Structures are given as structure tokens and as C-alpha cells.
């Protein structure tokens, strides 16, 4: 083929580069009232231009963003085993119910008599989450998991303040998500690291050694980010409680235990959930999520306001602050995400939810079992809903986790979470979720094994990946060294 006949596929232009001065987009309706008189406003109050703002029109705008969507990989594109993110299938009915005019069209300040269905939904969803977690009360206000964490830690701070105690420390295992220490710092606590034991879980002895009257809480994730169940949780909780501390659980991995165990039974006092993980609401390319917080009775008075209350058959919002920490955002939380999660729970029922966790665990153990020959297993035990591998075997051939992650893209999969948890060198954290069938999982395993073979035989091939994407490997160092964070007219 003549070299010139191959046309280089150009990068998608930025919307600003598609602009022509004076081109009209979606027009507002005609003015049915007198226009404003510029002269009636103080000099310099009104804007005369928005420099560089796009002028494109509808057809090309739609094309541009449609093409952008085609550069993305989502759960609907293919298998997305991103560990600790629970990328399960997002049922379409959730989108339909969230978009119902009787939900999408509600103003947060409209009279409560016009919002009874919304308040009922919030109230019932709170009850469901109370039942699933085995806690006493729930707030749906936090916007995401990290905000749920902040909510919980501020409540713990308030609880000790009320008791006249000044506890400054929070114990956090070294496998924790970065949000945990960041949250504690934001809430005014100092972080004390708890070292993970040989078996991949924290030990009562270690916690005992660190626990004193200056420790406000232990903040752990269960199952932890190695995909292992913290089997000593009850004993550890007893150690914390004996010295007056609180046990906080990051509920990011709830997908492993729904209907099988209740966090409340484990001695956990407070847990934040992620509706966008466990309860099938879509991740949206990084939000919006929703991070409800469930607590035991001792912490209930500190929950954010307003709270939904039911009197007779009428629902209302109670703004009475009492001992509450206040509020974390305007209004009541990510309501449309709540509608989706509510839809999911009603669809699944108790049997369905239990099956979710069972199958999530089965799928993860199956992957672990079938990859054990080709990949190093830093903690070779029965895992929960995710398993962690490392690149130890492949390092021999100078192939890293990053290289293999990029190569997986060529095989049509989203890579797992990589280089996390931090305590495993070259970690690959694989969370298949329950919505993947055996054929998908087997094909993924085949791809992983094929990459392991490539790493041995043709390492350069793996190191150059990906080849199949419109964009080849991206220079992230360059982006950080010379930040270009916006379009500027050349």
C-alpha cells in the first residue's frame, strides 16, 4: 500500500479549536418582558465578553462529545476488575427511575407536602442500610465515601469533646486507602500506623500495643485492601472499646459481606458505605458517588442535620441541631444516587443481596486459584471479593505491573487497581464482582496468562503496550513537570 494512502488519524480537537466567532448554539427563548437597561446598572458591573468561550452549534458539539465517549472504556464496554472500586454492572432501570419527573424535578426547598415520596424513599433507604450493616442509624447526606469518612471522624471528635476527653490519635492499618489518613488529618487527628501482620491482617497484639487513652479510634477496612477478612475483628474491637475508643470501618468493601455478616455484630461503631460501589450506581468517570454513614446509638446524636423523621404517615425534615456536627453540604445529599440504590435494593431483595456477596467471593477466589502459577500471591489465603497479585515473577524479565496493566488493555480489559495496597510491591488488585459470567472471567484469565508468557518470552512487547488504543502510552511525568491545565489560545 502506498504510504501516503494511510491517513493519520488526528487527535480530537478541543472544543475551543472548533469555534467560529458568531456561531450560535442552543438559543434561549424569546424575551417576553422588556430587556434590561444597561445604563441602569453601575459602570463595569456587566460582562461584555467571555474570552475564548466556544461558539460551535449543536451538531458539532454532539459529534465532539460522542467521539470523546468512544475514547472511553466503561463497564458497558467490557470487564473492569478495578480492585476496591466494585465496578459491577449498573442496571439500566436505575437510570430510568432516577430520571422520573417526580424525582428529578423536585426543588430541595419546596414545601414538604410536595416531597412526601422523596422523603419516604430517603427514610426507607436509611432503614435498609441500617439492616444491612447492623447499625442503629444512617445519614445519607455525605456526597462520597471520603465525605462519609470525614462525617464519621468529626462525629467521633465531637463525641469525645462532649465527654471532656482530648484524644488526638487514630490507628490506621498500613493497607488503608489514602483517604483514611487524609480524612483523619482534616478532622484534626494524628495518624498512628498499624502494621499488617504476616497473614495479611492486623493482629490483636499489635493493636493492644498501640492502644491507649489518647487513641480516639481505630479506622480499618474490612475486608481489607488485600482482599482478606480481618478475622480478629471482634477481639480487636474489644481491645479498642476497653480503653474507651471507637471502631470506624471504611465500608468500601461491603460487597463481600452483604447478607453474610453484619458489621455491627463485629464491634464496629461507625461505617461509611459507597452507594456507587456496593449498590450498583454508576461511577460516572469519577462521580457523583454517595457515601452514607451508619452508626451505633452512641454516635447517633452527632449525625448531620437535617434528618428525615416520620410522624404518623407524614414525613418531614428535622433541622434541630442538638449535638449534631452540622452539615457537610447544602441540602440533603446526592438524592438521584439514592433513588438508584433504592431501586437496586428493592430489585435484589435479601436473597439477591446475599447472593451478590457469595458470587463476588467465588469469582475472586476462582481468579486467584487459576493465576497462582503465573503470578506471585503475596498472601496466599482464601480471599474475599478481590485478590492481590504482584509482579515479582515478571520482574525477573524487567516487566512491571504497569507494563502488564497496559498490555491488558490490548486484550480488551480494563486493568486492575495497580500499586495498591502500598505494602505489596507491584500490587495488582483484581475485583471481578458478581456480575461477570464464567466465560468473561475465563477469557480474562487466559489474557493474564498470555501476558505472563509474553513477559517471559518477549518482554519488549509488553513494555511497549498498549498498541490497540488511539492513544499510546501517555507521558505522565511530562504532564506533572510542565503542567498545562487549561486551553490557552495560541
Amino acid at each position, binding site marked *: 500500500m502506498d504510504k501516503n494512502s494511510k491517513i493519520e488519524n488526528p487527535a480530537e480537537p478541543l472544543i475551543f479549536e472548533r469555534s467560529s466567532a458568531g456561531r*450560535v*448554539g*442552543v*438559543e434561549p427563548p424569546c424575551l417576553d*418582558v422588556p430587556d434590561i437597561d444597561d445604563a441602569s446598572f453601575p459602570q463595569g*458591573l456587566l460582562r461584555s465578553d*467571555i474570552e475564548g*468561550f466556544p*461558539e460551535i452549534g449543536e451538531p458539532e458539539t454532539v459529534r465532539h462529545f*460522542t467521539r470523546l465517549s*468512544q*475514547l472511553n*472504556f*466503561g*463497564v458497558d464496554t467490557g470487564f473492569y476488575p478495578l480492585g476496591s472500586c466494585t*465496578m459491577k454492572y449498573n442496571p439500566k432501570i436505575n*437510570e430510568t*427511575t432516577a430520571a*422520573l419527573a*417526580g*424525582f428529578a*424535578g*423536585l426543588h*430541595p*426547598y419546596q*414545601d414538604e407536602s*410536595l416531597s412526601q*415520596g*422523596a422523603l*419516604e*424513599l430517603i427514610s426507607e433507604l436509611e432503614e435498609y442500610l441500617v439492616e444491612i450493616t447492623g447499625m442503629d442509624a444512617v445519614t445519607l447526606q455525605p456526597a462520597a465515601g471520603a465525605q462519609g469518612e470525614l462525617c464519621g471522624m468529626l462525629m467521633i471528635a465531637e463525641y469525645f469533646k462532649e465527654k471532656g476527653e482530648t484524644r488526638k490519635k487514630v490507628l490506621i492499618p498500613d493497607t488503608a486507602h*489514602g483517604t483514611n489518613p*487524609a480524612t483523619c*488529618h482534616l478532622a*484534626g487527628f494524628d495518624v498512628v500506623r498499624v502494621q499488617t501482620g504476616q497473614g495479611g491482617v492486623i493482629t490483636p497484639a499489635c493493636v493492644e500495643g498501640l492502644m491507649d487513652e489518647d487513641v480516639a479510634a481505630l479506622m480499618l477496612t474490612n475486608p481489607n485492601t488485600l482482599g482478606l477478612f480481618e478475622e480478629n475483628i471482634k477481639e480487636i474491637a474489644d481491645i479498642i472499646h476497653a480503653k474507651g475508643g471507637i471502631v470506624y470501618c471504611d465500608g468500601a468493601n461491603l460487597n463481600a459481606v452483604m447478607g453474610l455478616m453484619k458489621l455491627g455484630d463485629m464491634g464496629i461503631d461507625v461505617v461509611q458505605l459507597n452507594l456507587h460501589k456496593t449498590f450498583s450506581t454508576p*461511577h460516572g*468517570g*469519577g462521580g457523583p458517588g454517595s457515601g452514607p454513614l451508619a452508626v451505633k446509638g452512641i454516635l447517633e446524636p452527632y449525625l448531620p442535620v437535617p434528618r428525615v423523621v416520620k410522624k404518623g404517615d407524614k414525613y418531614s425534615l428535622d433541622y434541630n441541631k442538638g449535638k449534631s456536627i*452540622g452539615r*457537610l453540604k*447544602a441540602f440533603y445529599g446526592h438524592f*438521584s444516587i439514592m433513588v438508584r440504590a433504592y431501586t437496586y435494593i*428493592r430489585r435484589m*431483595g435479601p*436473597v*439477591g443481596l446475599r447472593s451478590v456477596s457469595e*458470587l463476588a*467471593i467465588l469469582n475472586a*477466589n476462582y481468579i486467584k486459584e487459576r493465576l497462582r502459577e503465573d503470578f506471585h500471591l503475596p498472601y496466599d489465603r482464601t480471599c474475599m471479593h478481590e485478590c492481590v497479585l504482584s509482579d515479582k515473577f515478571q520482574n525477573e524479565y524487567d516487566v512491571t505491573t504497569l507494563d502488564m496493566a497496559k498490555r491488558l488493555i490490548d486484550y480488551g480489559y*480494563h486493568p486492575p487497581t495497580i500499586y495498591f495496597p502500598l505494602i505489596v510491591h507491584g500490587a495488582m488488585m483484581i475485583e471481578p464482582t458478581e456480575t461477570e*459470567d464464567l466465560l468473561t472471567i475465563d477469557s480474562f484469565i487466559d489474557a493474564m496468562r498470555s501476558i505472563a508468557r509474553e513477559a517471559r518470552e518477549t518482554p519488549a512487547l509488553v513494555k511497549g503496550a498498549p498498541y490497540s488504543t488511539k*492513544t*499510546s*502510552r*501517555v507521558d505522565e511525568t511530562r*504532564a*506533572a513537570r510542565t503542567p*498545562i*491545565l*487549561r486551553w490557552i489560545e495560541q
Partner: protein
Amino acid sequence: MSILGQPYLPHTSEEIEHICKTIGVKSVEELLQVFPEELRLTGALDLPGGLSEQEVLGLLTELASKNTSQNDISSFLGAGAYNHYIPAAVGNITSRSEFITSYTPYQPEISQGTLQGIFEYQSLICQLTAMDVANASLYDGASAMAEAALMARRVTRRGKVLVSSAVHPEYRETTATYLKGTDESPVEVGYCANSGVTLFEEVEKNFDDDTACLVVQYPNFFGGIEDIQALAELVHSKKGLLVVVVSEGLSMGALRPAGELGADIVVGEAQSFGSPLSYGGPYLGFMGVRQKHLRQMPGRVAGQTLDTNGRRSYCLTMATREQHIRRERATSNICTNQGVVALTCAIYLTLLGKGGLMRLARLNMAKAAFLKEQLAKVAGIKIAFTAPNFNEFVIKLETDPKVFLKALLEKDIAGGLDLGRFYPELKKHILVVATEMNSRAEMEAYAAAAAELLKT
């Protein structure tokens, strides 16, 4: 086996058997022995039984029907959540599952759609606010303000945060909550009872050597347009920062941008750009900062770079500020933000374009001016404040607004927000908005109904 036949769970009994055999267990139950026995649930969760998709839609439709959408009545409610028209193309594009079902773009080679969308969103926010840099989004206007206050403390290494009481009350409460982890509580400065804007003298008096920033809203909670330039000069003379909060994003299409007037951090709520009211969320917090403060900015940010073939591409960058790298020393704990809402905003703004957005903003001003004039003519209603407005303003009654608003509601008019719930001194005041969703006839009907109700 309980798994079979459950929604979204695809395994057959043969497949489950195969999996169990491969793992080396007889059944799922055997695998679950890993859990301590005393913790294992023996009975089922006490939840309503599962429903078919058709049944669940019926149930949710019934719940939804117990509510009344703003579009089924004449609504003049704003106060941080605005009913604007959403062009059909917005929902059409944002519902594409390549956008919805992806996660944070950790793998840039297969996330260029999200990443370029964020980059464009950041650029649009910079243009609207006239600031140098914007982040990839924050939860909402209220938490964005709280993050801005914390950022100002880091930048100035000062502790005190001064907040105008003409800032949205729920934004102020949120900031107070976020400051609980420090030794400070926000200190409030009052507004002028006549003009309805922040009292300059109070700022001057309270802004001391330990004050990090002043936070004002533009337009403020009462719809009044603050003199940002004068406040910026004052605050800068004391070596502090001016944080400007915009709760009605659309105002940026008509008013001089805060960045041009001397603001150091501009944050706000961009729900107006394509997001439905949805009973208060999810909305979209935005943040624009100066280049020199970039390292203290919280939240994700997308940057431009090249791939190995030298093609322009994008990735998340400057992660050394963030929790997953910096852990307890991060600028914020934020992780998941408002991804698809930021994309919605970018699509909305691109669809309207410069002309469309500026005309729509101006139209909102004209509608509000008309309604204000109509209501001002009603005996028993006074316009509360003298400052110029964008699309919101405050009216004052001689009687209790609760009775008035209730009576209006019987005529299917949501007449505005009773300010008494937030301001004890404004017990007879109502905050009213008019947008492109309110026709002239609707506004005339509001005035007529008000006149009828207030007739003595």
C-alpha cells in the same frame, strides 16, 4: 443454591459447580467457613423481597407520583438550586454509558474521553471565572466554599476565616463543619439592612493580621451584587485573600467575572449548567484559583501531555497534592468527585456557546427585573434591598410569609423561600427567583395572586 435466578447474576449451576471445584471447595457455604462462626448470619436480612424490573418501576413510579415536580407548578424558588431549561442534547450525550460506567481515569490510554472532557471543563471554568486554573470538580458549592476556606488558611498560614452573613446559610454551616478539625470557627460579618450587601466597615474592623480570607457570595444569598473590587482591595491591603462564592453559575454569563475584579479563589455551584434539581443533588462544585496558589488547590486535575507517538493527550496530574500519594499531608481527602456532572456542565456550556449563555443570563436578569417590578406594585409588598440583582431578589411583606406562601401554593404557585428560617431578623421576607422557565403570564399571575391575598 440461592444465587440462581437473581437479577444481574449470570452464573448457571454448572458454572458455580465448576468454580467451586477449581477452588477446591464443595460449596459456597464451605468457602464461607473463613468467616468466624459467631459472626455469620443464619437468617436472611429483614428487607422486602426482590422484585421484577416491571414491578420495581411500578413501585418507584408510585413513589415519584407522591411528589410534585417544579415543572408542574409555577415556581419562584431558587436559593442555591435553580430550575433552568436543559437542552435535549445534554441528557442525550451524558447518558452514553461509555461516560457513565467508567471510573476515575487512572488509565489514561482508555480514558481520553473523560480526561479531555475534564480538561475542557477546567478551561471553561477558567474562562467563566477569569481565573488561571480550575480543578476537576468538588461535591457542591457549599463544600467547595469550605475547601476554599481551608486552602486560604494554607496559603496565608493564617487561621481566621471571615464570612459574610449574606452567604448562603447552608454554605456557611458546611464551612463551619469543615473547620471543626482546626481550632477556628468562621467569624461572620453582617450585611447592610438597607442595601442587602456585605458591610464594608465590618470587614475592615474584623480583618486582622491573623485573618486568612474573607468569603463573600456574588451575587449574594439575597440576590444582591456585591462590590467585589472594593472588597478585594480592602482584603489585599491586609495581605489576606478574597474568596468569592457563586451559587448561581449562570450569573457568570452576565456579570463581570470575579477573577477580573481581584478575587483570589473563586468557587461555586454549577448545577444551573445542565443538572436537574433532583431534590438537592448531585450538583457540581467548581473551583478556580491563581497560578501561584496551584500547589495548595484541592481535588483532582487533568493536564495535557503527549503519548509515545507525540500525539496530544491528557492524564490526571499533580497528584502529589492528593490523598492517594500524600496521605495525611494531602491538601484534601477528596477522591471521587462529580465526574459526569462536570462533563454535563462542559456539554451544556458548549451547546449554548458564548452567545447563548450571555443571552440566557441577560434574559434571566430581565425576567427578574420584570417580576420585581410587578411585585413592587402590589400593596403590602416592598422590595427589601436596594442593591442591583441578577435573577433573585428579596420581598418584604407586612404579614407572616408562611400563611402567604401556603395560600399561593394552593394556587400552584411556589412563591419563594421564607427567609425567616435562616435569618431571625428577616421574618417577613421572601427570597424570589425568576428564570427562563417563568413566562410573563406566570409572573403576572403571581403578582395578581399576591395582590388578591394581601388585599386589606
